[in-house]
Protein backbone atom coordinates (compact mmCIF):
# COMPACT_ATOMS: atom_id res chain seq x y z
CA UNK A 1 0.00 0.00 0.00
CA UNK A 2 2.98 2.23 0.54
CA UNK A 3 4.97 1.04 -2.45
CA UNK A 4 8.28 2.46 -3.58
CA UNK A 5 6.79 4.01 -6.69
CA UNK A 6 4.08 5.81 -4.77
CA UNK A 7 6.48 7.29 -2.25
CA UNK A 8 8.75 8.15 -5.16
CA UNK A 9 6.03 10.09 -6.94
CA UNK A 10 5.23 12.07 -3.80
CA UNK A 11 8.91 12.78 -3.31
CA UNK A 12 9.31 13.88 -6.92
CA UNK A 13 6.31 16.20 -6.75
CA UNK A 14 7.63 17.88 -3.61
CA UNK A 15 11.05 18.14 -5.26
CA UNK A 16 9.54 19.83 -8.32
CA UNK A 17 7.52 22.30 -6.26
CA UNK A 18 10.53 23.25 -4.17
CA UNK A 19 12.73 23.69 -7.24
CA UNK A 20 10.22 25.56 -9.31
CA UNK A 21 8.79 28.07 -6.89
CA UNK A 22 6.12 29.07 -9.45
CA UNK A 23 3.18 27.63 -7.59
CA UNK A 24 0.51 29.73 -9.29
CA UNK A 25 1.51 29.03 -12.90
CA UNK A 26 -0.92 26.41 -14.20
CA UNK A 27 1.18 25.47 -17.22
CA UNK A 28 4.26 24.80 -15.13
CA UNK A 29 2.29 22.78 -12.59
CA UNK A 30 0.87 20.69 -15.42
CA UNK A 31 4.32 20.18 -16.89
CA UNK A 32 5.55 19.23 -13.44
CA UNK A 33 2.92 16.52 -13.09
CA UNK A 34 3.68 15.25 -16.59
CA UNK A 35 7.41 15.17 -15.87
CA UNK A 36 6.77 13.34 -12.62
CA UNK A 37 4.68 10.74 -14.44
CA UNK A 38 7.38 10.26 -17.08
CA UNK A 39 10.10 9.76 -14.48
CA UNK A 40 7.95 7.39 -12.41
CA UNK A 41 7.19 5.43 -15.57
CA UNK A 42 10.90 5.11 -16.33
CA UNK A 43 11.68 4.17 -12.74
CA UNK A 44 8.87 1.63 -12.81
CA UNK A 45 10.31 -0.07 -15.85
CA UNK A 46 13.47 -0.95 -13.95
CA UNK A 47 11.96 -1.43 -10.51
CA UNK A 48 11.43 -5.17 -10.84
CA UNK A 49 15.06 -5.85 -11.75
CA UNK A 50 16.47 -4.37 -8.56
CA UNK A 51 13.79 -3.92 -5.93
CA UNK A 52 14.50 -2.01 -2.76
CA UNK A 53 11.60 -3.20 -0.67
CA UNK A 54 12.72 -1.96 2.70
CA UNK A 55 12.60 1.59 1.39
CA UNK A 56 8.83 1.43 1.37
CA UNK A 57 8.68 0.84 5.10
CA UNK A 58 7.14 3.99 6.57
CA UNK A 59 8.61 3.35 10.01
CA UNK A 60 12.08 3.49 8.54
CA UNK A 61 11.32 6.85 7.02
CA UNK A 62 10.04 8.13 10.37
CA UNK A 63 13.14 6.92 12.18
CA UNK A 64 15.44 8.58 9.68
CA UNK A 65 15.52 12.14 11.18
CA UNK A 66 16.58 10.94 14.63
CA UNK A 67 19.34 8.90 13.05
CA UNK A 68 20.47 11.89 10.99
CA UNK A 69 20.70 14.04 14.11
CA UNK A 70 22.83 11.42 15.84
CA UNK A 71 24.97 10.97 12.74
CA UNK A 72 25.49 14.71 12.44
CA UNK A 73 26.93 14.92 15.95
CA UNK A 74 29.25 12.02 15.13
CA UNK A 75 30.37 13.76 11.94
CA UNK A 76 31.17 16.96 13.82
CA UNK A 77 33.16 15.07 16.48
CA UNK A 78 35.22 13.12 13.97
CA UNK A 79 35.75 16.25 11.85
CA UNK A 80 37.40 17.95 14.81
CA UNK A 81 39.54 14.89 15.40
CA UNK A 82 40.77 14.65 11.80
CA UNK A 83 41.35 18.41 11.51
CA UNK A 84 43.50 18.20 14.65
CA UNK A 85 45.58 15.47 13.08
CA UNK A 86 46.09 17.51 9.92
CA UNK A 87 47.29 20.64 11.71
CA UNK A 88 49.40 19.02 14.42
CA UNK A 89 50.71 15.75 12.95
CA UNK A 90 53.44 15.56 15.60
CA UNK A 91 51.22 15.69 18.63
CA UNK A 92 48.35 13.69 17.10
CA UNK A 93 49.94 11.09 14.81
CA UNK A 94 47.89 9.01 12.40
CA UNK A 95 47.91 5.21 12.46
CA UNK A 96 46.01 3.95 9.41
CA UNK A 97 44.49 0.47 9.56
CA UNK A 98 42.48 -1.67 7.16
CA UNK A 99 40.24 -4.19 8.90
CA UNK A 100 37.01 -6.09 8.50
CA UNK A 101 34.06 -5.03 10.57
CA UNK A 102 31.03 -7.26 11.05
CA UNK A 103 27.65 -5.81 10.14
CA UNK A 104 24.23 -6.98 11.20
CA UNK A 105 22.11 -5.49 8.39
CA UNK A 106 20.56 -7.94 5.99
CA UNK A 107 19.01 -5.74 3.30
CA UNK A 108 20.87 -3.99 0.53
CA UNK A 109 19.51 -0.64 1.62
CA UNK A 110 20.52 -1.13 5.24
CA UNK A 111 24.04 -2.10 4.21
CA UNK A 112 24.26 0.91 1.95
CA UNK A 113 23.15 3.24 4.72
CA UNK A 114 25.69 1.73 7.07
CA UNK A 115 28.52 1.91 4.54
CA UNK A 116 27.68 5.47 3.62
CA UNK A 117 27.45 6.56 7.25
CA UNK A 118 30.89 5.13 7.85
CA UNK A 119 32.26 6.98 4.85
CA UNK A 120 30.52 10.20 5.78
CA UNK A 121 32.28 10.41 9.13
CA UNK A 122 35.83 11.52 8.41
CA UNK A 123 38.38 9.11 9.79
CA UNK A 124 36.66 5.96 8.58
CA UNK A 125 35.90 4.88 5.01
CA UNK A 126 34.13 1.73 3.92
CA UNK A 127 36.21 0.08 1.24
CA UNK A 128 34.22 -2.93 0.18
CA UNK A 129 31.33 -5.11 1.21
CA UNK A 130 32.81 -8.55 1.73
CA UNK A 131 30.95 -11.86 1.60
CA UNK A 132 29.66 -13.28 4.92
CA UNK A 133 28.34 -9.90 6.17
CA UNK A 134 31.64 -8.17 6.69
CA UNK A 135 32.60 -4.68 5.71
CA UNK A 136 36.18 -3.79 4.89
CA UNK A 137 36.95 -0.43 6.52
CA UNK A 138 39.94 1.83 6.31
CA UNK A 139 40.40 4.00 9.40
CA UNK A 140 42.77 6.85 9.96
CA UNK A 141 43.59 5.79 13.50
CA UNK A 142 43.41 2.65 15.63
CA UNK A 143 41.20 4.59 17.98
CA UNK A 144 38.69 5.32 15.22
CA UNK A 145 38.58 1.64 14.23
CA UNK A 146 38.00 0.59 17.85
CA UNK A 147 35.15 3.10 18.18
CA UNK A 148 33.55 1.71 15.06
CA UNK A 149 33.94 -1.86 16.25
CA UNK A 150 32.13 -0.96 19.46
CA UNK A 151 29.09 -1.19 17.18
CA UNK A 152 27.03 1.85 18.16
CA UNK A 153 26.44 2.91 14.54
CA UNK A 154 25.79 -0.63 13.38
CA UNK A 155 23.15 -1.09 16.08
CA UNK A 156 21.38 2.15 15.20
CA UNK A 157 21.25 1.43 11.47
CA UNK A 158 19.91 -2.06 12.05
CA UNK A 159 17.30 -0.79 14.49
CA UNK A 160 16.10 1.63 11.84
CA UNK A 161 15.32 -1.11 9.35
CA UNK A 162 13.23 -3.20 11.77
CA UNK A 163 9.54 -3.58 11.20
Amino acid at each position, binding site marked *: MFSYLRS*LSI*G*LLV*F*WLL*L*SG*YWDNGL*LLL*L*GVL*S*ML*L*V*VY*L*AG*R*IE*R*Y*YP*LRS*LANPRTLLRLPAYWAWLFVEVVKSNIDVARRIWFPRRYPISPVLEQVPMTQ*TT*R*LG*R*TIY*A*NSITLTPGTI*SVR*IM*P*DSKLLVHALTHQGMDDLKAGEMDRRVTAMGEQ
Partner: protein
Amino acid sequence: MLGATAVAIIRLRSLFAVVMLSGIYSLLSASIFVALDAVDVAFTEAAVGAGISTMLLLGTLVLTGHYENEPAHKPLIPLVVVIVTGAVLIWGTLDMPHFGQPDNPIQQHVAPRYIEDSPREVGVPNMVTSVLASYRGYDTFGETTVVFTALVGVLALLGVRQGKTPVQPYNHPDQPPRPVLQVMSKLLMPYILLFALYVQFHGDFGPGGGFQAGVIFASGVILYTLTFGLDDAYAMIHPRILSPLAALGVMLYGATGVAGMLLGSNFLDYSVLAHDPVHGQHYGILLIEFGVGLTVACVMIMIFYAFMSRGEKLG
Protein backbone atom coordinates in the same frame (compact mmCIF):
# COMPACT_ATOMS: atom_id res chain seq x y z
CA MET B 1 45.02 28.85 -12.54
CA LEU B 2 43.51 28.46 -15.99
CA GLY B 3 46.91 29.00 -17.56
CA ALA B 4 48.64 26.58 -15.21
CA THR B 5 46.04 23.94 -15.98
CA ALA B 6 46.47 24.44 -19.72
CA VAL B 7 50.24 24.11 -19.47
CA ALA B 8 49.92 20.97 -17.37
CA ILE B 9 47.52 19.48 -19.92
CA ILE B 10 50.09 19.96 -22.67
CA ARG B 11 53.01 18.69 -20.60
CA LEU B 12 51.43 15.46 -19.44
CA ARG B 13 51.74 12.40 -21.60
CA SER B 14 49.27 10.18 -19.79
CA LEU B 15 45.98 10.89 -21.48
CA PHE B 16 44.12 9.88 -18.32
CA ALA B 17 45.61 12.74 -16.40
CA VAL B 18 44.90 15.03 -19.33
CA VAL B 19 41.21 14.18 -19.26
CA MET B 20 41.10 14.77 -15.50
CA LEU B 21 42.74 18.14 -15.87
CA SER B 22 40.51 19.21 -18.72
CA GLY B 23 37.59 18.54 -16.38
CA ILE B 24 39.16 20.99 -13.94
CA TYR B 25 39.79 23.38 -16.82
CA SER B 26 36.14 23.53 -17.70
CA LEU B 27 35.13 23.90 -14.06
CA LEU B 28 37.43 26.90 -13.88
CA SER B 29 36.15 28.46 -17.06
CA ALA B 30 32.60 27.98 -15.82
CA SER B 31 33.55 29.88 -12.68
CA ILE B 32 34.81 32.66 -14.91
CA PHE B 33 31.54 32.70 -16.82
CA VAL B 34 29.72 32.97 -13.52
CA ALA B 35 31.95 35.86 -12.58
CA LEU B 36 31.12 37.54 -15.91
CA ASP B 37 27.43 37.07 -15.13
CA ALA B 38 26.89 34.79 -18.13
CA VAL B 39 24.73 32.35 -16.20
CA ASP B 40 23.44 30.36 -19.14
CA VAL B 41 26.90 29.83 -20.60
CA ALA B 42 28.19 28.70 -17.21
CA PHE B 43 25.28 26.31 -16.98
CA THR B 44 26.12 24.80 -20.36
CA GLU B 45 29.81 24.62 -19.55
CA ALA B 46 28.97 22.86 -16.29
CA ALA B 47 26.78 20.27 -17.92
CA VAL B 48 28.56 19.78 -21.23
CA GLY B 49 32.19 20.65 -20.57
CA ALA B 50 32.67 19.12 -17.16
CA GLY B 51 30.23 16.28 -17.51
CA ILE B 52 29.46 14.77 -20.86
CA SER B 53 32.64 15.64 -22.70
CA THR B 54 34.79 14.12 -19.95
CA MET B 55 32.79 10.92 -20.17
CA LEU B 56 32.92 10.80 -23.96
CA LEU B 57 36.66 11.51 -23.98
CA LEU B 58 37.16 8.64 -21.55
CA GLY B 59 34.99 6.45 -23.73
CA THR B 60 37.26 7.25 -26.63
CA LEU B 61 40.29 6.43 -24.51
CA VAL B 62 38.89 2.99 -23.79
CA LEU B 63 38.51 2.41 -27.52
CA THR B 64 41.99 3.68 -28.38
CA GLY B 65 45.20 3.70 -26.40
CA HIS B 66 45.88 5.77 -23.35
CA TYR B 67 49.31 7.19 -24.01
CA GLU B 68 50.16 9.92 -26.42
CA ASN B 69 52.59 8.89 -29.14
CA GLU B 70 55.96 10.51 -29.34
CA PRO B 71 55.60 13.43 -31.74
CA ALA B 72 56.80 12.44 -35.20
CA HIS B 73 58.33 15.80 -36.06
CA LYS B 74 59.87 18.68 -34.21
CA PRO B 75 57.29 20.96 -32.63
CA LEU B 76 59.25 24.08 -33.64
CA ILE B 77 57.39 25.05 -36.81
CA PRO B 78 53.91 24.67 -35.32
CA LEU B 79 55.10 26.64 -32.30
CA VAL B 80 56.22 29.52 -34.53
CA VAL B 81 52.95 29.45 -36.42
CA VAL B 82 50.95 29.49 -33.19
CA ILE B 83 52.97 32.31 -31.68
CA VAL B 84 52.66 34.41 -34.84
CA THR B 85 48.92 33.81 -35.05
CA GLY B 86 48.50 34.63 -31.38
CA ALA B 87 50.49 37.81 -31.74
CA VAL B 88 48.42 38.87 -34.74
CA LEU B 89 45.22 38.17 -32.84
CA ILE B 90 46.36 40.20 -29.84
CA TRP B 91 47.45 42.99 -32.16
CA GLY B 92 43.99 42.85 -33.72
CA THR B 93 42.27 43.19 -30.38
CA LEU B 94 44.21 46.36 -29.63
CA ASP B 95 42.00 48.03 -32.17
CA MET B 96 38.85 46.72 -30.59
CA PRO B 97 36.90 48.81 -28.13
CA HIS B 98 37.39 47.97 -24.49
CA PHE B 99 35.42 45.20 -22.91
CA GLY B 100 32.00 46.22 -21.68
CA GLN B 101 32.00 49.85 -22.77
CA PRO B 102 28.56 51.21 -23.57
CA ASP B 103 29.57 52.74 -26.90
CA ASN B 104 30.82 49.47 -28.44
CA PRO B 105 29.22 48.62 -31.78
CA ILE B 106 27.69 45.44 -30.37
CA GLN B 107 26.07 47.45 -27.62
CA GLN B 108 24.57 49.86 -30.18
CA HIS B 109 22.85 47.82 -32.86
CA VAL B 110 21.52 44.44 -31.84
CA ALA B 111 21.81 44.33 -28.08
CA PRO B 112 19.57 47.31 -27.29
CA ARG B 113 16.85 45.90 -29.50
CA TYR B 114 17.05 42.53 -27.75
CA ILE B 115 17.12 44.13 -24.33
CA GLU B 116 14.43 46.74 -24.87
CA ASP B 117 12.02 44.90 -27.11
CA SER B 118 12.23 41.33 -25.93
CA PRO B 119 9.97 41.79 -22.88
CA ARG B 120 7.31 43.24 -25.16
CA GLU B 121 7.81 41.05 -28.24
CA VAL B 122 8.61 37.73 -26.63
CA GLY B 123 7.59 38.21 -23.04
CA VAL B 124 10.00 35.71 -21.52
CA PRO B 125 11.81 36.75 -18.34
CA ASN B 126 15.12 35.13 -19.27
CA MET B 127 16.44 37.20 -22.14
CA VAL B 128 19.04 34.66 -23.20
CA THR B 129 16.30 32.18 -23.97
CA SER B 130 14.38 34.67 -26.05
CA VAL B 131 17.46 35.54 -28.07
CA LEU B 132 18.47 31.91 -28.50
CA ALA B 133 15.11 30.48 -29.37
CA SER B 134 13.30 33.32 -31.02
CA TYR B 135 15.53 35.98 -32.58
CA ARG B 136 18.23 33.48 -33.41
CA GLY B 137 15.91 30.57 -34.01
CA TYR B 138 17.64 29.63 -37.27
CA ASP B 139 21.03 29.26 -35.56
CA THR B 140 19.66 27.05 -32.84
CA PHE B 141 17.84 24.94 -35.42
CA GLY B 142 21.14 24.48 -37.21
CA GLU B 143 22.88 23.49 -33.97
CA THR B 144 20.24 20.91 -33.18
CA THR B 145 20.66 19.44 -36.64
CA VAL B 146 24.41 19.29 -36.11
CA VAL B 147 23.91 17.32 -32.90
CA PHE B 148 21.64 14.94 -34.76
CA THR B 149 24.17 14.54 -37.57
CA ALA B 150 26.81 13.70 -34.98
CA LEU B 151 24.61 10.85 -33.80
CA VAL B 152 24.27 9.55 -37.35
CA GLY B 153 28.06 9.65 -37.72
CA VAL B 154 28.75 7.83 -34.47
CA LEU B 155 26.16 5.17 -35.20
CA ALA B 156 27.59 4.62 -38.66
CA LEU B 157 31.07 4.15 -37.16
CA LEU B 158 30.36 2.21 -33.98
CA GLY B 159 26.85 0.83 -33.96
CA VAL B 160 24.80 -0.10 -30.91
CA ARG B 161 24.59 -3.64 -29.61
CA GLN B 162 21.08 -4.97 -29.53
CA GLY B 163 20.32 -6.04 -26.01
CA LYS B 164 19.04 -9.17 -24.38
CA THR B 165 16.38 -8.87 -21.72
CA PRO B 166 18.04 -8.82 -18.32
CA VAL B 167 17.10 -11.93 -16.36
CA GLN B 168 17.39 -10.44 -12.90
CA PRO B 169 21.17 -10.71 -12.91
CA TYR B 170 21.60 -8.77 -9.69
CA ASN B 171 19.51 -10.88 -7.40
CA HIS B 172 22.39 -12.29 -5.41
CA PRO B 173 22.05 -10.57 -2.05
CA ASP B 174 25.50 -11.66 -0.93
CA GLN B 175 27.77 -10.18 -3.52
CA PRO B 176 26.37 -8.01 -6.27
CA PRO B 177 29.08 -6.25 -8.29
CA ARG B 178 29.02 -2.82 -6.66
CA PRO B 179 26.18 -2.79 -4.17
CA VAL B 180 26.62 0.62 -2.58
CA LEU B 181 26.85 2.46 -5.86
CA GLN B 182 23.94 0.58 -7.34
CA VAL B 183 21.64 1.44 -4.48
CA MET B 184 22.75 5.06 -4.51
CA SER B 185 22.37 5.46 -8.25
CA LYS B 186 18.98 3.84 -8.18
CA LEU B 187 17.86 6.20 -5.43
CA LEU B 188 19.27 9.31 -7.07
CA MET B 189 18.46 8.68 -10.71
CA PRO B 190 14.78 9.68 -10.64
CA TYR B 191 15.65 12.96 -8.99
CA ILE B 192 18.33 13.71 -11.56
CA LEU B 193 15.86 13.04 -14.35
CA LEU B 194 13.23 15.27 -12.74
CA PHE B 195 15.82 17.98 -12.21
CA ALA B 196 16.64 17.80 -15.91
CA LEU B 197 12.98 18.24 -16.78
CA TYR B 198 12.80 21.16 -14.37
CA VAL B 199 15.73 22.79 -16.14
CA GLN B 200 14.01 22.07 -19.44
CA PHE B 201 10.74 23.78 -18.61
CA HIS B 202 12.10 26.67 -16.58
CA GLY B 203 14.43 27.88 -19.32
CA ASP B 204 12.04 30.79 -19.77
CA PHE B 205 12.44 31.97 -16.19
CA GLY B 206 16.00 31.28 -15.19
CA PRO B 207 19.16 29.79 -16.60
CA GLY B 208 18.44 26.59 -18.41
CA GLY B 209 16.91 25.25 -21.58
CA GLY B 210 16.96 22.36 -23.95
CA PHE B 211 20.69 21.80 -24.36
CA GLN B 212 21.48 21.74 -20.66
CA ALA B 213 18.39 19.73 -19.80
CA GLY B 214 19.16 17.15 -22.45
CA VAL B 215 22.66 16.70 -21.14
CA ILE B 216 21.55 16.39 -17.51
CA PHE B 217 18.86 13.88 -18.44
CA ALA B 218 21.43 11.89 -20.38
CA SER B 219 23.83 11.94 -17.44
CA GLY B 220 21.12 10.52 -15.20
CA VAL B 221 20.65 7.61 -17.61
CA ILE B 222 24.42 7.29 -17.99
CA LEU B 223 24.79 6.97 -14.21
CA TYR B 224 22.35 4.09 -14.28
CA THR B 225 24.06 2.47 -17.26
CA LEU B 226 27.44 2.73 -15.58
CA THR B 227 26.38 1.02 -12.39
CA PHE B 228 24.00 -1.57 -13.78
CA GLY B 229 25.28 -2.30 -17.28
CA LEU B 230 23.79 -1.98 -20.74
CA ASP B 231 21.09 -4.61 -20.48
CA ASP B 232 19.42 -2.98 -17.51
CA ALA B 233 19.64 0.41 -19.15
CA TYR B 234 18.01 -1.04 -22.26
CA ALA B 235 15.20 -2.26 -20.06
CA MET B 236 14.56 1.35 -19.10
CA ILE B 237 15.16 3.14 -22.39
CA HIS B 238 15.73 0.96 -25.41
CA PRO B 239 17.80 2.26 -28.34
CA ARG B 240 14.97 1.20 -30.62
CA ILE B 241 12.90 4.03 -29.16
CA LEU B 242 15.76 6.48 -28.86
CA SER B 243 16.74 7.06 -32.46
CA PRO B 244 13.20 7.87 -33.65
CA LEU B 245 12.82 10.17 -30.65
CA ALA B 246 16.01 12.02 -31.57
CA ALA B 247 14.68 12.58 -35.06
CA LEU B 248 11.33 13.58 -33.61
CA GLY B 249 13.02 16.34 -31.63
CA VAL B 250 14.48 17.91 -34.74
CA MET B 251 11.16 17.46 -36.52
CA LEU B 252 9.28 19.10 -33.65
CA TYR B 253 11.53 22.11 -33.99
CA GLY B 254 11.06 22.26 -37.73
CA ALA B 255 7.34 21.64 -37.51
CA THR B 256 6.91 24.51 -35.11
CA GLY B 257 8.63 26.73 -37.64
CA VAL B 258 6.51 25.40 -40.50
CA ALA B 259 3.36 25.86 -38.43
CA GLY B 260 4.25 29.53 -38.12
CA MET B 261 4.67 29.63 -41.91
CA LEU B 262 1.35 27.92 -42.56
CA LEU B 263 -0.42 30.41 -40.33
CA GLY B 264 0.81 33.18 -42.57
CA SER B 265 4.09 34.34 -41.12
CA ASN B 266 7.81 33.65 -41.48
CA PHE B 267 9.58 30.37 -40.74
CA LEU B 268 10.20 30.12 -36.99
CA ASP B 269 8.09 33.17 -36.18
CA TYR B 270 5.85 31.94 -33.39
CA SER B 271 3.80 35.08 -32.85
CA VAL B 272 0.95 33.61 -34.85
CA LEU B 273 0.71 30.36 -32.90
CA ALA B 274 -1.80 31.85 -30.49
CA HIS B 275 -4.18 34.75 -30.57
CA ASP B 276 -1.87 36.87 -28.52
CA PRO B 277 1.60 37.21 -30.15
CA VAL B 278 3.34 37.09 -26.77
CA HIS B 279 1.58 33.86 -25.87
CA GLY B 280 2.43 32.53 -29.30
CA GLN B 281 6.09 33.26 -28.71
CA HIS B 282 5.89 31.58 -25.34
CA TYR B 283 4.38 28.36 -26.65
CA GLY B 284 6.70 28.37 -29.64
CA ILE B 285 9.77 28.64 -27.43
CA LEU B 286 8.46 25.95 -25.13
CA LEU B 287 7.93 23.61 -28.08
CA ILE B 288 11.26 24.15 -29.78
CA GLU B 289 13.14 23.97 -26.48
CA PHE B 290 11.44 20.65 -25.90
CA GLY B 291 12.51 19.54 -29.35
CA VAL B 292 16.10 20.56 -28.60
CA GLY B 293 16.05 18.82 -25.23
CA LEU B 294 14.62 15.63 -26.70
CA THR B 295 17.20 15.50 -29.46
CA VAL B 296 20.15 16.28 -27.22
CA ALA B 297 19.12 13.77 -24.54
CA CYS B 298 18.50 10.97 -27.03
CA VAL B 299 21.67 11.67 -28.99
CA MET B 300 23.84 11.73 -25.87
CA ILE B 301 22.37 8.51 -24.52
CA MET B 302 22.73 6.82 -27.91
CA ILE B 303 26.35 7.90 -28.31
CA PHE B 304 27.06 6.63 -24.82
CA TYR B 305 25.36 3.32 -25.57
CA ALA B 306 27.46 3.04 -28.70
CA PHE B 307 30.68 3.57 -26.74
CA MET B 308 29.61 1.13 -24.05
CA SER B 309 28.68 -1.61 -26.49
CA ARG B 310 31.94 -1.21 -28.38
CA GLY B 311 33.83 -1.27 -25.07
CA GLU B 312 32.11 -4.49 -24.08
CA LYS B 313 33.00 -6.05 -27.40
CA LEU B 314 36.66 -5.28 -26.77
CA GLY B 315 36.39 -7.03 -23.45
